């Protein structure tokens, strides 16, 4: 079905365009770190989810060798996490931060639910949009927190270069 291909390509291209326009080159390390930590989460969780057949992906990349949705877990969720990090209202009130995170998790939940309803890219077995919403909420906050901690002392620094090689 054409909708499967359309769904994946449109999502990927849109997110790629927004990412390229959002991330300034001098902050590329933050984007990379956030992308990578989200990949760790999606790889681990995605594997567990399909191992226990909580979700199935009838149409997917590399269908012969994996049951996991490689496209989403390798590219789309990590890129979404990068965008979440870059637009996070760091100087705003606590309520604004919670509302912001809820909105992103809600959008991801809806997107995933739409994928379940409209396409063959995934089907919920023991899963629902609410679990997806809550997991997205936690994962986005975790990646955001990790990246924030990671760049408390920015990379690359002069001090870091000088102490390089010492334990």
């Amino acid at each position, binding site marked *: 079905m054409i909708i499967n291909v359309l769904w994946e390509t449109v999502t990927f291209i849109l997110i790629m365009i927004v990412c390229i326009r959002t991330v300034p080159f001098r902050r590329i*390390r933050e984007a*990379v*770190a956030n992308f*990578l*930590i989200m*990949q*760790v989460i999606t*790889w*681990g969780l995605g*594997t*567990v989810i*399909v*191992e*226990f*057949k909580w979700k199935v992906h009838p149409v997917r990349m*590399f269908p*012969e*060798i*994996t*049951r*996991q949705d*490689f496209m989403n877990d*390798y590219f789309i969720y990590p890129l979404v996490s990068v965008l979440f990090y870059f637009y996070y209202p760091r100087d705003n009130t606590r309520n604004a931060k919670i509302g912001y995170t809820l909105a992103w998790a809600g959008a991801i939940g809806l997107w995933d639910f739409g994928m379940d309803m409209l396409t063959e890219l995934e089907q919920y077995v023991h899963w629902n949009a609410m679990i997806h919403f809550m997991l997205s909420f936690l994962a986005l906050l975790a990646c955001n927190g990790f990246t924030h901690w*990671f760049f408390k002392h920015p*990379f*690359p620094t002069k001090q*870091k*270069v*000088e*102490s*390089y*090689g*010492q*334990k």
Partner: protein
Amino acid sequence: MGKNEYIELSIWVVSIALMLFFIPRARIREAAVSFMFTQLLSWILGYLVVYFGLLSYPKHFFATATDTSFTYEFLAFPAISAIMNVHFPTGKPVWLQIGYWLLFPTVLTLVEIVLVHYTNLILYIHWAWYISWISIAATMLLAFAFHNWFVTGSWKRPRRMA
């Protein structure tokens, strides 16, 4: 649980223990970024070698989810790569640096040869030990260059020591 499962479980234990033992607290961020970047490479490369039928993993964890070796690609290889990058002998003689870099793929390949011969964890189809060695060495070198770029701003091997 049979022999294969015990060996695979012991790989988890050994990898985590090695990371806890060899990665100093002060350099945990460097180690994390090496670890995660190696995962990015090993995830897709691991898929490709199985997809093209070069290797297969007859017994492995998460057999329903994937046909690739989750243990090796998610944990063991990134852990070794992170340890290598963090302890690279900067400022030492060049022969020592080259020897250090060659040591890691050699040890990993030796372990792999043992696993091929004595367990069902890995099976060579259109593959040989030297292809393993070359691919591991190349991936680690790429991860090392990325680590250097991330930490020092230049992908080249850092020359001086404070």
